[in-house]
């Protein structure tokens, strides 16, 4: 696989705030790269520099070995974190408008079908639901049949079903071997869609790799979740000595125990007569990784 974007030592500062502080990575052709991080991490600032919308203070970006130029506009498909379309224009007219701005375009009917826009094609864009709107904006990003697609938090604010619908669309795009750069603060979204993720915080990269590799590098344990109760608390107290192989974290209504040996742990819990009726066992997630790396929760 050859790299389509090469990013070296990007810096961008707003007044005193270093929004992006020395970020370097490569995007391979045909992959879906996820930029992951909490609000304010610098994800939008980073992608907007890649999109040639913001100009970096420092550093270089190369698209297929050359600096970003006018031609890049024809090759890039862009969906901003927040955009408005002109008022009083229908979905179809918006698509046609954007299509006419490009020299080479995708087939409009195919695009309408792929993004499932048929039901509201003749509605004004201002009157769409959140999920419909995001699909229209995605279709507009695809209107020039781009080689590389930038999606900035495309599912933020959508309900779970609309998010899953949107993920299906992205899977379809991936099948066409397009390169995607996606930002999100949902770890599950990154895990579901991305071949490689870059975790950012405070304008810097704190980890990068494939989701699986990242998890196996940092964790070799699983998490046992139990519902919190006073009884559980008091029993855990007495067990604390024996349970030294586990580390315990207390959340609002859950207690989580990390262990590398589930069998052993469950035996110990049963021996202490702890009720396991609310027990769940889960694998480590990217949320855990973020907590591990930064000492704070991704979403607060």
């Amino acid at each position, binding site marked *: 696989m050859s790299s389509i974007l090469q990013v070296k030592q990007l810096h961008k500062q707003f007044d005193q705030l270093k929004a992006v502080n020395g970020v370097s990575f490569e995007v391979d052709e045909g992959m879906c790269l996820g930029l992951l991080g909490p609000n304010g991490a610098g994800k939008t600032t980073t992608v907007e520099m890649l999109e040639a919308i913001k100009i970096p203070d420092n550093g270089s970006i190369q698209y297929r070995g050359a600096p970003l130029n006018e031609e890049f506009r024809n090759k890039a498909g862009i969906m901003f974190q927040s955009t408005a379309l002109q008022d*009083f224009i229908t979905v179809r007219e918006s698509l046609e*408008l954007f299509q006419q*701005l490009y020299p080479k375009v995708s087939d409009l009917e195919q695009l309408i079908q792929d993004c499932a826009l048929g039901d509201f094609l003749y509605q004004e864009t201002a009157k769409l639901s959140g999920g419909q709107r995001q699909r229209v904006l995605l279709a507009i990003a695809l209107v020039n049949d781009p080689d590389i697609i930038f999606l900035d938090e495309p599912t933020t604010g959508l309900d779970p079903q609309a998010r899953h619908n949107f993920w299906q669309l992205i899977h379809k795009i991936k099948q066409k071997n397009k390169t995607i750069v996606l930002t999100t603060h949902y770890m599950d979204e990154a895990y579901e869609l991305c071949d490689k993720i870059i975790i950012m915080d405070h304008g810097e990269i704190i980890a990068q790799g494939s989701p699986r590799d990242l998890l196996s590098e940092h964790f070799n344990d699983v998490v046992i979740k139990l519902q919190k109760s006073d009884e559980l608390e008091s029993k855990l107290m007495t067990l604390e000595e024996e349970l030294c192989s586990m580390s315990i974290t207390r959340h609002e209504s859950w207690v989580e125990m990390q262990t590398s040996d589930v069998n052993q742990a469950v035996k110990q819990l049963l021996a202490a007569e702890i009720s396991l009726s609310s027990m769940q066992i889960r694998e480590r997630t990217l949320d855990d990784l973020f907590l591990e790396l930064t000492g704070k929760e991704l979403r607060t």
Partner: protein
Amino acid sequence: MRWQRFISILKARDREFVRDRSALAWNILFPLLIIFGFAYAFTGDQLDQYKVGVIHQSENNEISFYSTQYIHFIDINELERTTAIDKVKRHQLDMLLEVDKKRYWVNDSSPSGYMLEKVLAGSGGEGYQKQRVQGAQVRYVDWLIPGVLGMNMMFSALFGVGYVVVRYRKNGVLKRLKATPLSALEFLSAQVVSRLWLIMAITSVVFIGCDLLIGFSMAGSYFNLFLVYALGAFSMISMGLIVAARVKSEEMAGGLLNMMSWPMMFLSGVWFSLEGLHPWVQKLALIFPLTHITQAARVIMLDGAGLLVILPNLVALLVMSVIFLLLGVLLFRWE
């Protein structure tokens, strides 16, 4: 410059404008309301008062004419004789007297003039020489229409470009367009052309509407009038581009646009003649496009003036258009 991109942005803007029914209705109704308002306000029962302009009133030799009741005597400077005679032509003055030269002007078609002439002859003005003037009455509304049409263009031009582009910038429409191959020049020319033809279309509708409903005088050539209004609208649209270039908030844009349009509205001679104002204010008024539009349209419509007469106004409008346009395009930022 790619025509396809220009045309598609133009089409989108036109659609937006035409489909925004309330704004469209307002654009047409607003000038009609103003013109009707004034047409009725000034055609009602006027005070039964005759207006007589007097040159060299100080030298008046106390003929009893001056003590006639219900005559309003207006002191007029000798240098403004021509203007005053024009007012007699338009029935804005019923009579003009020049005391030292013992002569007076009345309009042949004015009943008031005829009455005053009789009064003058019977109250000490026997020796005065009559100077004939001819001309149909110019109602205030006839005088008003050329400027009100220009004023309506001003609002539509300034806000329709200045405010709208700033709104596009604020809500992210411009940012989205920036991400396409569209150039600033293509985008801005589409905004200008769309607004220009919409203004001309709406002004034509208002013009015809007024003519059908109240009828007004149109002495000159329609081509000349079209030229003045088209160039005038273009210059004020370009003025709007300067506000559109950088401003990020609608409130700021609104403030700036009001700051531009209010002085123009009152100091461009739309509502009252600038003659009475301080000479400095009269000079200042010449930097407003609306002053030139009003002046030129008025002499075309009332006096049938030809191109030569309005040439200075046209040149002024052209120069302003070029300056505003250059500033607007050079200062423009998508974000």
